């Protein structure tokens, strides 16, 4: 990517690691990179799991009151109470993965690979790695380790800073 003072820059703090929440950061990072922006993603807390070599994301109906799945030609609400039924979250996750495939939506793996190919910089939060006992060996190749100060310095130079 061309690096000059005119290049716009974007940074993102990625805090969530569920299948649904994995989409916004990777969609925005890959699109911004395609539009010529210099992009940095800072992965912290549950967002850090999106850097794992093998992704195993799921969705939960708990605390997700707006979640409604298209079923039988209508939208089925997913009230919090159903999340206590064993297998509901697994079924909802399987259903969402199925929809993703059917509707021509990219997989997170594809978006992540595209992000790396487009030189999106990835920073893995050191504190989260210590807290949840991860090492860089568990992660894909590409991310560097850093902390809050690393992110803040980067953010001061950015045109867009997002917290997701």
């Amino acid at each position: 990517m061309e690096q000059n003072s005119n290049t716009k820059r974007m940074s993102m703090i990625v805090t969530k690691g569920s299948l649904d929440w994995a989409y916004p950061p990777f969609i925005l990072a890959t699109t911004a990179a395609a539009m010529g922006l210099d992009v940095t993603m800072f992965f912290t807390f549950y967002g850090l799991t999106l850097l794992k070599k093998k992704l195993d994301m799921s969705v939960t109906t708990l605390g997700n009151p707006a979640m409604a799945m298209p079923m039988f030609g209508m939208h089925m609400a997913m009230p919090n109470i159903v999340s206590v039924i064993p297998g509901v979250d697994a079924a909802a996750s399987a259903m969402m993965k199925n929809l993703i495939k059917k509707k021509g939506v990219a997989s997170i793996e594809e978006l992540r690979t595209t992000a790396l190919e487009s030189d999106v910089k990835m920073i893995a939060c050191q504190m989260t790695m210590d807290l949840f006992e991860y090492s860089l060996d568990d992660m894909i190749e590409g991310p560097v380790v850093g902390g809050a100060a690393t992110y803040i310095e980067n953010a001061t130079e950015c045109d867009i800073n997002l917290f997701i």
Partner: protein
Amino acid sequence: MADQLLDAKGLNCPLPILRAKKALKDVAVGGTLEVLATDPGAVKDFEAFCRVTGNELLDSKVEGGIYQFLIKRTG
């Protein structure tokens, strides 16, 4: 007739844009890329993509549910 054709039919946001970005790399500066898509959101997205990247959107139309974009690579 465009220099390159990209079939992005059936793909959803942001794949048409990502594939177009990749395809533009194989187009010579001054050459054109035609993109076919079925994602209605692609209309506004290709306008924005071209405005930000400086590539020129020569044509944008819809025919029989297929969106057609003609992009000229400028740099």
